[in-house]
């Protein structure tokens, strides 16, 4: 599970920014309510978290909505996407991506697991 969170070729150019394809870095599905995201930076610049959308099961939601979504699950085999606004994205160009996900497994109260990723990625 060492490199599960962000796979290779996961930075997709999209309308108005990127869709970053991510996998759940955990052995089992989790409800969205136990998932948080830390700072997200592209080329060192912090992206406004209120402008980022999380997409799974074909649905978009704001990051601040996640704690309430205890009835929606992210299945372990499915990709999810972070929809990140960014100006003038070019396919084939390299971007430095920094992202952190924080998991709060619902069977171990008060314990959380941050997983961070920082790498130069080529937009496709």
């Amino acid at each position, binding site marked *: *599970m*060492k*490199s*599960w969170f962000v796979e290779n070729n996961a930075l997709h150019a999209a309308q108005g920014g990127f869709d970053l394809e991510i*996998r759940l870095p955990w*052995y*089992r*599905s*989790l*409800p969205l*309510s*136990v998932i948080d995201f830390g700072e997200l930076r592209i080329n060192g610049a912090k992206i406004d978290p209120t402008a980022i959308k999380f997409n799974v099961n074909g649905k978009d939601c704001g990051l601040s909505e996640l*704690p309430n979504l*205890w009835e929606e699950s992210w*299945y*372990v*085999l499915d990709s999810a996407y972070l929809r990140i606004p960014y100006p003038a994205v070019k396919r084939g160009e390299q971007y430095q991506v920094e992202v952190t996900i924080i998991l*709060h497994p*619902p*069977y*171990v*109260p008060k*314990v959380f697991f941050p997983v961070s990723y920082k790498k130069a990625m080529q937009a496709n």
Partner: protein
Amino acid sequence: MTEQASGLRLGTTLFSFTNEFHARKYTVEQLIDKVGELGLGPGVELIGFSAIREYPGVSDEFVQMFRDALERNHLEPSCLSMNGDVMIRRTRPMTNDESYEYHRTQIETAAKLGMPVAKTQVIVGPEVLARLAPLGERLNVKIGVELHSPERVDSPNVIALREMYAKVDSPYLGFVPDFGACVTAVPHCFVDHFRELGIPEKFIQIALEAWSLTGTFGERIGQYQERERAAGAGDSEIGAMFMIFSMLGHQEPRKWLEIMPQVIHIHGKFYDAKEAAVPFEELLPLFRDNGYQGYLSSEWEAHAFTDDDAESELLALHERMRHILAGDPQAVR
């Protein structure tokens, strides 16, 4: 040992194959075929929230696939690993009624899959478990609480369960010892991981020394934090190595005898099949020779630190276990 008294049956949990499953290399069906091909049975355990998309429920298609895959591989259902997700709402724990319902669906799924045991977690507590016993009896599924580090047979949460078990006296309630609760040393993959994170060696050694101390979980982590801070370690380093205290206990293997009649399934947790840290040589005869009747799932958990597949580790552990059960322990380091 006579053949009759030897009621310990080997098997594995598909959790061991977490890396290859997550990487979409194999489906659940293909993993069951692999268990058959590699001779890791006869018991097959799976984690509901991993193997089954529609879990806590289960589709008829999954049930049929599971039963067919077991049959063609001459395998047997051993245990459904449930989760006691009391904190799915961030604002409050589940009520006991909610927790009962959450488990009811999971136990019904276990029954559909033909699982003799459904395993849950200590956090669920005695009240909900006592209420689940009649459901287990009706569906013929035993409900087992996993005794996973930092819990021990005599930690307060487990004592509360043992007291309830004594009162309710149901054969449908039991325990699932996890061998991670009784390791003799911190497996090397943890230390390798800490070094890879760049944690200074002196902090790693302090953590290992504190882990070896006697005392309760609270006392040991208190000592750990105090010693690390005195040496200049920061919160991130202390936090990163906390896992050895939460995931690995050093309860003496013989302590399992206190609950032996209530053991209904076993998790043979391991990290490196050739490493002596998990004392299978002592544990397997202890269960076999003291009346245990049921499955032991090999449970490879080093996938937390690597992207490697489980196959070679599982083959090596099963060879080691067969040697032990044949009375011919292999030399391990």
